[in-house]
């Protein structure tokens, strides 16, 4: 249980330190800022978690977000309704995700790194080409509200993240599909032999990650009232970092939504705290890097402990 709560305890400790250093940190407005700045990373991290649970990786989420936002903005300037741009953004994300999954699984590629690296490039190129390299202004009122409006100090985007997280967590822990995701990540060969539809499971996690990149596009486009090929730049790395800081294993089969959110918040809190403390942005990059290494190292120590425990219980009475 302590092991499971580890990332949360570290987040609370880090927040405590920052709060001691700068009193502004714990004001309602600033907490709202942290949540708003973290919303996109958090949504992408949830999708990334599903992929990493199956021993995969999705490098394309950042450029998928950019392409979704561009297509959404173009749709809005064309038709002017609110629902068609929203559908377009979610649809483009899901489409790119399906391409990732189908090419990876049915192309029998050795690792999803390759196909998602390719779609990173393709989606980014498509976003630049469609937009002419320029941001496209204008988003439906609803999208602007989702991205930018607040209830008291709490940003609407935080509620969207919370709803997404609850649904994702229920799917992982309470629905058969989620159980299959853990099984495929835990032992792909056994999953195949035992009759779990491992191909569909793999395709579905990439589709889900793409869908959530579309949700990320919704939030970013709403915040800035535009679609742009530069949105989501390097967001794939943030999302991967969040999942890893949240204690998920690259070896698959271990990790949960709550801890992925904690990982995203960790990145958001550290960035926000360093901004408040006037830390230079290049120094922030270094700190985030160190945090990633520390998080993975603690993961290594944890699996050591687990193995120790196993040996002890095997030798027991």
């Amino acid at each position, binding site marked *: 249980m302590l092991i499971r709560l580890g990332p949360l305890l570290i987040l609370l400790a880090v927040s405590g330190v920052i709060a001691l250093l700068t009193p502004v940190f714990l004001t309602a407005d600033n907490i709202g800022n942290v949540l708003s700045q973290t919303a996109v990373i958090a949504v992408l991290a949830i999708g990334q978690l599903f992929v990493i649970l199956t021993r995969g990786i999705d490098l394309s989420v950042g450029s998928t977000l950019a392409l979704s936002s561009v297509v959404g903005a173009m749709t809005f300037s064309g038709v002017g309704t609110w629902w068609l741009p929203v559908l377009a953004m979610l649809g483009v994300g899901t489409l790119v995700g399906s391409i990732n999954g189908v090419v990876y699984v049915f192309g029998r590629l050795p690792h999803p790194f390759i196909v998602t690296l390719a779609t990173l490039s393709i989606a980014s190129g498509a976003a630049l080409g469609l937009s002419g390299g320029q941001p496209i202004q204008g988003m439906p009122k609803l999208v602007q509200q989702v991205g930018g409006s607040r209830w008291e100090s709490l940003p609407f985007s935080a509620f969207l993240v919370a709803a997404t997280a609850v649904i994702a967590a229920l799917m992982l822990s309470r629905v058969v599909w989620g159980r299959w995701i853990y099984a495929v990540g*835990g032992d792909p060969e056994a*999953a195949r032999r035992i009759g779990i539809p491992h191909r569909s499971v793999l395709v579905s996690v990439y589709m889900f990650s793409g869908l959530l990149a579309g949700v990320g596009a919704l939030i970013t486009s709403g915040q800035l009232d535009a679609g742009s090929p530069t949105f989501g730049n390097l967001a794939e790395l943030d999302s991967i970092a969040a999942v890893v800081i949240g204690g998920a294993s690259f070896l698959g089969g271990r990790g949960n939504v709550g801890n992925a959110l904690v990982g995203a918040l960790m990145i958001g809190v550290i960035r926000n705290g360093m901004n408040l403390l006037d830390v230079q942005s290049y120094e922030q990059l270094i700190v985030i890097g160190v945090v990633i290494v520390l998080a993975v190292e603690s993961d290594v120590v944890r699996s050591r402990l687990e193995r120790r425990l196993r040996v002890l219980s095997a030798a027991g009475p």
Partner: protein
Amino acid sequence: MALDSVDLEVRRGEVLAILGDNGAGKSTLIKCISGVHRLDAGHVEIDGLPIAMHSPAAARGHGIETVYQDLALFDNLDPAGNFYAGRELGTPSWLPLGMRWLRRSDMSAATSALLGRLQVGISDGRTPVGLMSGGQRQGVAVARSAAFATKVVILDEPTAALGLRESRQVLDLILRLRDDNHAIIVISHAMDHVMEIANRAVVMRRGRKVGEERPTRENRQRLVSLIVGGED
């Protein structure tokens, strides 16, 4: 590895051992029975009726469960997760299986009941099996097969990776399955274990069945010479 005119039969409440040196065709034989390999010729009958067998899932559908040497356990799931992997209990039943809500407490209850009845000692049913000892893991894998096998349980070298005490537990478990009226096929190199638990032993050599004996202390020598081919 090819098989040639192998004929064998196993009855309920009986343990049939398959003996043979490496490369004798034991593994090929059980892969044929468990649906991994297709038969070029010949057939598998259950209760006197020939059955179609084109995949491991089809074999399981006919009530034949196999415990492979590597156990095929999910280390990150608890015993119940392993028991029901790929055949989860879910609701509502009109949805496709993948979209159903897991009936987690039903699955846990059924799993601990069976593990308890088969006396597989597991203190906490929510422990991932990756954290369990070799004997407990073997116990979970064997119990999983027993839970779903309505006809035949096949065990491939069930004690090969285990120490003395854990082997004992697994042998006892196999005997309890037999007393539960399962039909059991065991592949093993361990002569002592075969003599203790098997009602009959079939000896394979170079893809052929070269003998069938009731394994007793008296004919142990004869079984060994059949295995190594000393009578030729």
